[in-house]
């Protein structure tokens, strides 16, 4: 068998995912259960994001896939090739040219537009899971807006470390209602969650889909005396000189040598090409 249905999944599966996406958009931040399928890649490699992308793509789309900001890592390359083969869509590494962007753990530095869709790969969709392991209880907590426990967790950060030390998967409140896990993006990216593009979140192993429509209010949880801070390494990119982008720290040798580079490879390349 050499041919696949367009975008790999069968039509009935896509309809089921599409219905979940629509309910997710109608109740921003609420986790809609869906019947996640086995995909030809292991859990943890973005099976949720891939299923959401498959249900969203049209043949005219131009797909970009990033893994921690980079277009050229194994996960990003393999998912891009997967959709090149099964959906026949065009792909790109340029953020501005993409219509659908699937991402693992970053939001691109370039501002997204109304014509774009950002699909997140999510490992643990339930922000309360490490505080309360029972699904029946976390469901109840969401229904009652019982989010005090989350503030206790952030408070314990402050009492132990003097600051909110949660650095990624920083909990947010969506449209003044649901507390949501924005997937393990660095908290540097949290302010960008209020954007013009549609944001869809897919958790394959945990079988949940959720969404944030454009221009939806997304507030990072904090305290009046300990306000939320979007932090990054206090450095500029050693390749392009950007002082406003999220940085990766790269160990260069075993003598303590290190450099800081943009985690968003397209942003860094575009800036270097502009000055070259």
């Amino acid at each position, binding site marked *: 068998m050499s041919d696949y249905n367009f975008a790999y999944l069968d039509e009935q599966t896509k309809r089921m995912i599409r219905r979940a996406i629509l309910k997710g*958009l109608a*109740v*921003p931040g*609420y986790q809609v259960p869906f019947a996640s399928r086995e995909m030809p890649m292991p859990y943890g490699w973005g099976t949720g994001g891939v299923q959401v992308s498959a249900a969203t793509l049209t*043949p005219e789309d131009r797909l970009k896939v990033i893994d921690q900001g980079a277009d050229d890592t194994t996960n990003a390359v393999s998912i891009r090739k997967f959709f090149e083969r099964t959906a026949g869509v065009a792909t790109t590494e340029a953020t501005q040219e993409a219509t659908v962007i699937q991402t693992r753990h970053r939001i691109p530095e370039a501002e997204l537009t109304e014509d774009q869709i950002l699909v997140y790969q999510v490992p643990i969709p339930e922000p309360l899971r490490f505080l309360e392991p029972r699904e029946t209880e976390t469901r109840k907590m969401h229904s009652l807006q019982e989010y005090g426990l989350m503030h206790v967790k952030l408070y314990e950060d402050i009492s132990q470390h003097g600051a909110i030390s949660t650095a990624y998967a920083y909990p947010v409140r969506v449209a003044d209602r649901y507390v949501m896990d924005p997937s393990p993006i660095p908290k540097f990216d949290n302010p960008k969650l209020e954007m013009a593009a*549609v944001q869809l979140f897919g958790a394959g192993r945990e079988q949940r889909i959720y969404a944030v*429509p454009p221009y939806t209010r997304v507030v990072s949880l904090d305290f009046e005396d300990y306000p939320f801070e979007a932090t990054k390494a206090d450095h500029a990119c050693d390749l392009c000189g950007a002082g406003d982008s999220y940085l990766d720290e790269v160990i260069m040798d075993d003598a303590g040598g290190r450099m800081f580079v943009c985690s968003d490879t397209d942003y860094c390349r575009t800036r270097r090409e502009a000055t070259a």
Partner: protein
Amino acid sequence: MDGSSLYAGGFRDAPVDAAHAFRAAMTAMARPGDIRRIAGAAPPAPLSVAAGTLLLTLCDPETRVHLGGEADSDAVRQWLSFHTGAPLVDAAEADFALGSWADLMPLSRYRIGTPEYPDRSATLIVECETLENSGAVLSGPGIRDTACLLLPDVDALQGNAILYPLGCDFFFTCGDRVAALPRSTTIRVEG
């Protein structure tokens, strides 16, 4: 009706037509008040192209459909059964309901979800005579400042929005155009 029209009117290329239709429906739901073109199906009268396309895109044997008023004809039932296999049910059990606003009311008949599972609510596909960006002022998720949409019954829809995060979600269809109103949208009367 003759047999040929029962089998006709489906998607020509189901995966691609459904993908295009879903993108239109999704964009409409993500941006309340936005009017999008949606086509691909040729349903029997009195269904609009947009309503027929939404049914083919979203319905299958797993979704219970309620047909209201004129839409509840033999031709529509047979067309829907042949193309989607969706079971036809009363309003109280429906995942999707289709008809004119008057035929679908009262709104209290439909499932609004449960506090733990607000997604288990009905989506109403409302056939409209006109679809235009005027009248009621919308704000909330998906809307930058405000948007306008002519709504069939502002009072009833405001009542639905108050139930948030429970409540029904709506598609409004007219010809080959669609707009959506999720329960999360705040509705004000101009003035």
